[in-house]
């Protein structure tokens, strides 16, 4: 099949490199902001939407501190361009508590002392809730394997895993 060169994008289809309006759906609210195409979702959240709960650790996809959900799936916001998020639903740690009540996973992290410095915690919690939704947390080995994308420099892993087990085993399923 030959490609018709006439389908090349009109100049109007190209965006940037200067800042242009972008619409992002974050935690159920719609935000219209101006961004350059090179801005990551992580930087858009932190520097442009003042949502600093999502943390910047490595900024190269190796630590998991920036974990958010896109359309309900956990992803790394540092390796996602904000422009690629238009039309998708983003969820961050700021949207996890409901009506002033901590999410059961947040409460379990507190109850199990599942953090020390706390820097990786938002990413850990976003990953942990997603893990239970994915249904791959049957054994301790499952939990360790499927949480391996979230590094904890304080080595609080035993307590993080205990928190996840508690929510998994709770009657309401978290």
């Amino acid at each position, binding site marked *: 099949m030959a490609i018709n060169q006439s389908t090349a*994008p009109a100049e109007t289809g190209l965006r940037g490199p200067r800042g242009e309006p972008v619409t992002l759906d974050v935690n159920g609210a719609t935000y219209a902001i101006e961004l350059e195409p090179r801005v990551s979702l992580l930087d858009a959240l932190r520097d442009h939407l003042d949502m600093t709960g999502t943390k910047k650790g490595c900024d190269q996809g190796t630590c998991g501190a920036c974990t958010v959900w896109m359309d309900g799936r956990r992803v790394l916001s540092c*390796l996602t361009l904000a422009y690629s998020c238009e039309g998708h639903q983003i969820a961050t740690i700021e949207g996890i508590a409901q009506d002033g009540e901590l999410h059961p996973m947040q409460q379990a992290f507190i109850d199990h002392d599942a953090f020390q410095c706390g820097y990786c915690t938002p990413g850990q919690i976003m990953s942990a809730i997603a893990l239970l939704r994915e249904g791959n947390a049957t054994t301790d080995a499952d939990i360790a394997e499927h949480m391996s*994308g979230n590094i904890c420099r304080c080595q609080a892993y035993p307590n993080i895993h205990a928190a996840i087990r508690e929510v998994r085993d709770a009657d309401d399923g978290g």
Partner: protein
Amino acid sequence: MTMRPITFFRAGSIDEAVAAVSSHPDSAFLAGGTTEIDLLRLNVVQPTLLVDVNDLPLTYLEDVDDGGVRIGAMARMSDVARAPRIVERYPGMSQALLLGASEQLRNMASMGGNMCQRTRCSYFRDGQSPCNKREPGSGCSALTGINRGHAVLGTSEQCIATHPSDVAVALVALDAMIRTIGPDGTNAIPIERFFLRPADTPSIEHPLAHGELIVAIDVPALPVARTSRYVKHRDRASYEFALVSVFSAMRVDDAGNVAELRLALGGVGTVPWRAHRAEEALIGRPATPENFAAAADAEFADARTTPMNEFMVTFAKRAIVRELSEVTS
């Protein structure tokens, strides 16, 4: 590090994506972004136009050719790994996918993008050391540098960078086909021809024209693959690239001879490494540890090592013997 300014285009169709990239010399496709955005920020790759292909209707898996599977190029690693037809027909491929990266990255990374992922060689990634892959003619820093994790098979004097993919190891063993659409039309590339050894041109990794987009990966029907396996040995238990990985699919006949064998290795080659020599050494021969060892010796007869990575040869041979012995027992 801050990324250089880029122009962005979100393609609404395959034709639009191909036209956008092929009409702009400094452009690149953007799929899951797990390699591309990383390397952009490191200034290792410097396209000025990114053409986002994430909206294209290429996330499907469908049956082809009486038991084979066609995997859309934008299907995500996590979805492919858990698709029932993949788990049932190619369990070793499912295992390879799940042993790669982390769940977050597997949710992002596409199958087409995985085929195009770049090496983890630190001299390539640092953006400044001499590197023939990044800057042709500048030299290879890894040859005399820190090269514990570098390739021992398929190397050249120009480059010893290891290919990092897990699932590509499974796909070369399965004789998959890479399907593309480019400015000159459609193309189908047998997967072993898709991954180019460095030779004298390490910067050319695939036989793709500028603007040629991977649209699907065909995995042929292969009954022996229903008992395939993938084992990965690495420095930590999870979320780490392979030192040595082994994909195997083997059938032993009633007489105890190897009737069928698909064997491929990760972590040791400049490309996902199909162990043709080992396969040829074993087909029709008794499935014994002695023969497995002889086959492994044959595979690594031409290995080119450095003082830091010569352990890989022994390691890989043992991994092959152990894997095939476990499959046999």
